[in-house]
Every structure is written in structure tokens, then in C-alpha cells.
């Protein structure tokens, strides 16, 4: 027995004893006369009651109610937007005054690399020449921007870093302005497609809010809610995974009645002090509620039967699935306060309805929750979060009930359109026209007869007119080996907005269509991803291969819609391409899906190209152009696209708002 229980019992005992004495005195009035009690004693008690009551008020106003913090499963986990790192650095510098010199160095370096690429592309010159132009400030007529790259930092500035920290305000503001001006100028010089420049002040404010609350800028209220997403650390649900059909998470006193005692104590106390029976009577209601709050019964949520149904049997990624959840109370007692939240997986987006319900269920009664969700590839089984309270709400029991209703969403790999495959082929017959003569359909050339040529290919007309034997060659049609390669590193999990799918989702959706098309054209198609989780599915053919690929698209951890855990790149850096490069057949063509969010992705394409693979980069463009960081990343990406195209690598710069099939058709005309 701990001290608290002991104290409690003592209090109850003393209280009961006093009550008995009081009743005895009322029953036998003679008893009281002997005691040395008068009005002062009543006063003292009244004062104690009042003071205690005020103490309770203070506790209530200071204290927090303990209750389960629930997730917002309606929305997807917010993925970072491109350029957030730059905005964060600027914010740190200008508002938090942290890491001024480090961030400044990083930003300067980044901008300089970008400027070199832009100038080199425009002037068609060497890197050295581009640097010279930048140093000389000849690249722009905008003085503020030109001076950004001009001159080394003077020795005085290097030495006077502490000085600049002291007078930091102006310095940082000046740097930020110059940075912005330079970015804008690079947009102009590099002829990058962005919307007209945004008002700088508004921009600052927005990026400030962005950073502070992780908001996307324009939908403040809504994205605020994203902060309390399931993934967030302050959610009191410890893990998302529950293998049990029923699991208790917590059972706690909510303390939500804390303070109601104050109504009793203050009213009775003051009523005693002022001899107002009416006030004392009013105080009794408070006493009653105090008792009510402590009379509690643990809700028997283990008796809940939950069933979940879907209107589509076999949904495909992107389908809208209507979910119907039926909750029935078979516990045998009433559940007076049920707060139900269906913990829809992070990858899903609820597009209609609400996966929550607040209700009370009598024994045997049932309730329904209906909502529509946009589903995403993968295999899922998710729990219903049940927060149940008793009548007074004093006790709260939180449990996870997982109905036996898993959902498996596999991409269909349907054939949507032709995909241009280039003439790097295997020895197998297929659909790709090669530059070799042989048997086939399309006329290629006429050559001298060589012994052993099949008779049906001899050009009899020529034999008839000249008497010499000649052989017709047809264009050989062969199959290509194509490897679909994904960039699924952490940096690729970026999206154009909090509700938007991220680049990896766009890539996998597009690729599952392209896979079907390539397969249908008779090519050997494989799948790989560069990530720390190795993903490799060797090119092959056959219906089994297709089926395996579908499952791979749906379930491979490297292609998961959920970003990989943040990795510590500094400590142990393994080139994520190593395992892919080791296995890649030398004649394989590559379809690389990457948002080109960093130089590494572009470098991968370039190196594969130089190793003799024919590379086609399909790059979903998820950059936006509101804050300075976002604009900067857009120019950087544009520069990467140009860099790759310069090297003869096909790049399909794909805006995910447009249909990929149309884009491919357009590009095909360009490439032909």
C-alpha cells in the first residue's frame, strides 16, 4: 500500500468519524454544549474551505487535462517541398541568427555552382571561362546580382566575422537581399520558366511561417493540422503497427473534473463565513459532481466488434475506395462515450467523408463510419483507434482494434501507349528496329549473294535482268533489354504541396504504365532502384515476370510510398548505385525516373550514359516557385536537365499535371 492510498484511507476515516459526531450532536443537542466550540471555529473551517477551493482553482487553471492525443489520418504525411532547405537556412540566419557564417558559405557555394552552370550553358564555354565571367560581373547588368560573385571575400571580412556578428542585422539582411536578387537574375539570365516575381516582403513572411510551422504557405489553417499527423512525436499512440486484433494503449484518469471541487469549497466556505444557507446549499451541487467524477467504470471496449468493408475488391493505386466501418457493441454494457478514429495509413488521402465518429453505444447497438480514400500501392492493415470514456469522462481507455480487413493495392501494369525504345538490343527477336540487315519485314538493303542465303530472300528481278544473284536484307527486329531505374533516395521524396503525391509516387505510377508498354512490345524489362535498400529485378520476360513485377511495384520497400528513415549520410556513405551497377547487363537501356533534386541523380544518368547504356531520364517536375528557395531549386533542376541534354541524354521533363503519354508522344516527335 503506498503512501497516497494510506493517506486517503486516513482522510476517509477522519471524515466519517466527524460526520458521525455531527449527526450524534444533531440527534442529541445536549452533547454539543459541552464542547468548547463557538462561532470562531466555524469561521476557521469556512476559511480553510475557501482557501482550499481557491487552491483548486489555481491548479485547474495551471494544469492540463490528460487525454489521448489523436492523429489526423485524413491527410498524407507531409513531404518536404523542394527548396525547403534553402528557405530554412535563410530563416535561421535572418530570424534565429544561427549558423550565420556556415549557412552563408553553403548558400554562396550553391549559388555559385548554379551560376556557373547557367552561364556555361548560355555562353557555351568552359567552366573556367564561366567563372571568369562571373568574377568579372559580366553576366548581368544587375549590379546587386553581379556583385554577389565579384571579388574574393576580403581579408578584413574574413577576420572580422565576429564584427559582422555584432552588426549582424544589417549584414544578414543585405546578404539575403543580394541572394534574392541574384536568384531572380539567374532566373532571367537562364531563361527559366517561373511565375512573375513575388513581392519580396510577402515572400519573407511566408517563408517565415513556413519554417515555423512547416506550412505550405497558402493554406495556413489546414496545414496546421498536418503538424499533428500520426507520425508526429507528440502523438500518444506509441506505434502504428499492431499485430493484435485488440490492443490496449492506455488507461488513464483524465482529470477533466479538476476544479469542480472548487465550486463546492468556495460556495460552502463563503456560505459558512457569511451565514448564508443558500450558498452552502449551492455548494452541495459541487460536492455531488466531485463524487460523480470519481465514480468510474472502465469502459469495456474489448467487447467492440469492428468490421471494415471496401466497395472495390481489388483497388488499383489512385482509386477512390469507399470504406464502410461498422462498430458493434457486444460488451454487454453501455459504452457512453466512444471516440472512434480510423487510423487510415499515411499513404492514403481521405477525399470525402470523415473517418471519425463520436457516439454512445448501448449493448448490442452499432454505428457506421463511411468515408472515401484515395489509395496508394502497398499492402495495408490498419487499426481503428478507440478512445472510450465512462459517463463522467473521468476515465479514458484508449485501444486499437484491428479488423481483419487488409487491403492490397497492386498496380495493374496495363499497356497505355507506345514507349520509344532505342536501338540497343539483345539477340532475341522483338519489336525494335535495328540497323542490321537480315530476316524481317521492312526492306533494308540489297547485297551480293553469299552461299547459304535463304532462297526466299534472293532478289529474282535482279537475277532476271542481270543474271547475277543478289540477296535482299530486311531490317532486323530485335528485343531490347530495358531497366527501369528509380531514384528513391530520401531527397526524391519531395512534393509540390502537402496534399500532392511526392516525386517517387509520380515516378512509380508512370513507370508501372511504362513497364506494361515495354513488356507488351516484347522487350526484356527489369526494375531497379538506387537506395540504401537494394532493389533489383533482373530484366526478363513471361507472364510470371510481369506478375512478379506487379508485386514488386506494390510491396518493395525501396519503392514504398513512405520515405526511408532519415539516414546519416555523413558517417557511412555507400554509393547507392553500387549494387545496381554491379548487376546491370551491359546492353541494357535505362529508363531513369528521378525528380533530379540533386546533382547526384544527374551524375548517375551521365555515368550510365558514359558506360554505354542508352539513358532516357523521365523526370517529374515537382518544383514550385513561391519562396526564394523554391525558385532556386527550380533553376537548379532546369540547369541539370540542360546539362544532361547537352550530353545527348534524352530527358523527358514531365510536369505531373500533364499526362505522361502525351508528353512521350511530343518527345518522340522531337527525338525522332
Amino acid at each position, binding site marked *: 500500500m503506498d503512501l497516497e492510498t494510506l493517506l486517503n484511507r486516513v482522510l476517509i476515516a477522519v471524515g466519517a468519524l466527524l460526520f458521525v459526531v455531527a449527526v450524534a450532536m444533531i440527534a442529541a443537542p445536549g452533547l*454539543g454544549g459541552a464542547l468548547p466550540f463557538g462561532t470562531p471555529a466555524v469561521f476557521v473551517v469556512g476559511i480553510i474551505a475557501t482557501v482550499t477551493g481557491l487552491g483548486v482553482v489555481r491548479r485547474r487553471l495551471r494544469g492540463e487535462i490528460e487525454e489521448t492525443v489523436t492523429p489526423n489520418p485524413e491527410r498524407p504525411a507531409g513531404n518536404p517541398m523542394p527548396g525547403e532547405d534553402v528557405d530554412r537556412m535563410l530563416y535561421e540566419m535572418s530570424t534565429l541568427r544561427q549558423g550565420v557564417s556556415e549557412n552563408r558559405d553553403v548558400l554562396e557555394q550553391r549559388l555559385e555552382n548554379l551560376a556557373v552552370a547557367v552561364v556555361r550553358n548560355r555562353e557555351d564555354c568552359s567552366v573556367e571561362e564561366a567563372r571568369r565571367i562571373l568574377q568579372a560581373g559580366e553576366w548581368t547588368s544587375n549590379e546587386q546580382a553581379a556583385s554577389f560573385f565579384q571579388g574574393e571575400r576580403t581579408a578584413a571580412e574574413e577576420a572580422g566575422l565576429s564584427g559582422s556578428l555584432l552588426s549582424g542585422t544589417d549584414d544578414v539582411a543585405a546578404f539575403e537581399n543580394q541572394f534574392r536578387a541574384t536568384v531572380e537574375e539567374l532566373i532571367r539570365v537562364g531563361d527559366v520558366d517561373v511565375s512573375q516575381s513575388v513581392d519580396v516582403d510577402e515572400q519573407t513572411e511566408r517563408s517565415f511561417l513556413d519554417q515555423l510551422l512547416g506550412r505550405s504557405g497558402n493554406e495556413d489553417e*489546414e496545414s496546421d493540422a498536418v503538424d499533428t499527423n500520426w507520425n508526429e512525436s507528440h502523438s500518444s499512440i506509441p506505434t502504428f503497427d499492431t499485430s493484435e486484433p485488440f490492443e490496449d494503449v492506455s488507461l488513464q484518469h483524465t482529470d477533466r473534473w479538476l476544479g469542480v471541487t472548487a465550486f463546492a469549497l468556495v460556495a*460552502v466556505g*463563503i456560505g459558512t463565513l457569511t451565514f448564508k444557507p443558500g450558498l452552502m*446549499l449551492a455548494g452541495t*451541487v459541487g460536492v455531488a459532481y466531485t463524487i460523480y467524477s470519481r465514480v468510474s467504470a472502465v469502459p469495456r471496449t474489448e467487447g467492440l466488434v469492428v468490421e471494415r468493408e471496401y466497395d472495390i475488391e481489388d483497388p488499383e493505386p489512385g482509386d477512390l475506395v469507399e470504406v464502410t466501418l461498422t462498430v458493434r457493441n457486444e460488451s454487454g454494457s453501455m459504452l457512453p462515450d466512444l471516440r472512434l478514429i480510423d487510423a487510415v495509413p499515411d499513404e492514403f488521402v481521405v477525399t470525402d467523408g470523415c473517418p471519425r465518429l463520436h457516439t454512445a453505444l448501448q449493448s448490442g447497438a452499432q454505428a457506421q463510419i463511411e468515408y472515401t480514400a484515395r489509395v496508394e500501392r502497398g499492402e495495408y492493415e490498419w487499426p481503428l483507434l478507440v478512445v472510450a470514456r465512462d459517463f463522467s469522462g473521468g476515465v479514458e481507455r484508449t485501444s486499437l482494434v484491428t479488423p481483419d480487413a487488409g487491403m492490397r493495392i497492386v498496380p495493374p501494369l496495363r499497356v497505355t501507349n507506345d514507349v520509344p525504345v532505342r536501338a540497343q538490343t539483345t539477340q532475341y527477336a522483338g519489336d525494335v528496329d535495328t540497323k542490321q540487315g537480315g530476316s524481317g519485314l521492312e526492306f533494308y538493303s540489297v547485297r551480293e549473294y553469299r552461299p547459304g542465303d535463304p532462297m526466299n530472300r534472293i532478289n529474282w528481278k535482279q537475277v532476271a535482268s542481270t543474271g547475277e544473284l543478289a540477296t535482299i536484307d530486311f531490317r532486323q527486329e530485335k528485343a531490347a533489354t530495358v531497366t527501369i531505374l528509380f531514384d528513391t533516395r530520401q531527397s526524391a521524396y519531395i512534393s509540390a504541396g502537402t496534399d500532392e503525391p511526392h516525386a517517387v509516387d509520380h515516378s512509380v505510377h508512370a513507370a508501372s504504365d511504362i513497364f506494361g508498354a515495354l513488356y507488351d512490345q516484347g522487350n526484356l524489362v527489369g526494375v531497379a532502384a538506387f537506395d540504401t535498400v537494394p532493389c533489383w529485378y533482373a530484366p526478363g520476360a513471361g507472364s510470371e515476370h510481369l506478375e512478379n513485377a506487379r508485386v514488386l511495384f506494390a510491396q518493395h520497400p525501396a519503392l514504398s510510398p513512405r520515405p526511408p528513415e532519415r539516414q546519416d549520410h555523413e558517417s557511412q556513405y555507400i554509393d547507392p548505385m553500387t549494387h545496381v551497377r554491379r548487376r546491370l547487363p551491359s546492353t541494357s537501356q535505362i529508363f531513369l525516373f528521378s525528380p533530379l533534386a540533386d546533382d547526384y541523380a544527374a551524375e548517375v544518368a551521365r555515368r550510365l550514359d558514359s558506360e554505354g547504356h542508352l539513358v532516357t531520364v523521365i523526370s517529374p517536375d515537382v518544383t514550385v516557385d513561391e519562396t526564394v528557395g523554391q525558385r532556386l531549386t527550380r533553376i537548379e533542376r532546369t540547369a541539370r536537365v540542360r546539362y544532361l541534354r547537352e550530353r545527348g541524354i534524352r530527358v523527358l521533363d514531365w510536369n505531373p499535371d500533364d499526362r505522361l503519354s502525351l508528353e512521350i508522344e511530343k518527345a518522340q516527335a522531337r527525338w525522332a
Partner: protein
Amino acid sequence: MMSFDTQDEEFGAVEVTHSPARFSSIVAVAAAVLAVVTTGLIAPLSALVGVFGLVGVGGGLFVFESERLAIAGTGIVFLGIVVAGFFADVPEFLLFAALATIVAFDLVSNAFSVGRQLSDQTDTQRGEAVHVAATVFVGILAAGLSYGIYLVPWGALTIPALTFLLLSALFLLWSIRQ
């Protein structure tokens, strides 16, 4: 045809907001108004205090969405009752006003709790209604009981007896609170 066209309107995520539950909020404000009006009937001066409290309750629930403000508001409404009791000791009115105030207090905290744990888009009608009913029922029962005891003529409620009675109530309340 591509199966993905994420720009369709219907694909957007639903809105999720967490303001205090509407039904409970309205009943809470109504209860607070009742309390203030009741005290105003017996002691108009106290209604002035009560109106301050009302502003707190209403503002906390509907404008600032601050639980602390709304709870403090119910506290001030109750302070109005104490003032009214000081000037005009009409037990029935005071009892009713106290009941209404505590109901408001409970519903304020429930409205915020439901708003936080669920959302404005959630169907909370039934859950809230049951809670309101339970609280009001308990209150009426308790008030009726204490009024009944009050009406019974207790011949010899001497001051020492009253002291003991109060002390015992105090000790029992302490034990309950823990």
C-alpha cells in the same frame, strides 16, 4: 490512359479543423446565460460580474478557442453566484444557478476535448448529446436531493454540530480528490 490525374478536384484531401464541438458549446453558453439570468433576478448587481464571465465563456469557445479562458469564464459566472448569495440569500435560485454553472463548466471542457480528439467534420451529435444528458441528469438528481435534505426541518443544528459536519465534508472531499 494514365490512371493518375491528381489534379482532379475530388482528389483533394478533406478539411480537418479542431474547434470546440458545436453542440456542447451552444449548450454550455446557454447554461451559463441561465445561471447569470437567475442570479440577476435576485441580485441585479451580481449579474454584472456574471456578464464578464459570459463574455469569457463565449469568447473562449467561439472566438479565441481557448479552453483556459472559457473555464475561467465559468469560474467568474460562479463568482457572480457567490456575490448574489451574499446580497440575496434565495436558496432555490442559488442552487439552480450553481447547477447551471457546473453544467456549463463540464460542457466547455467536453467541447474542447471532443474538438481536439475528433474534428469539426466528425459526426459528434450522439456522443455529445449523451454526455449532456448524463451531466444534466446527475446535476438535477444531486440538486433535488440536497434541496430535499434542506427542506427537512433539522431541529438542533447547533454551531458545533455544523462545524463537525463541515469538517467531515472537507475531509471526505479531500479524500475524493486524491
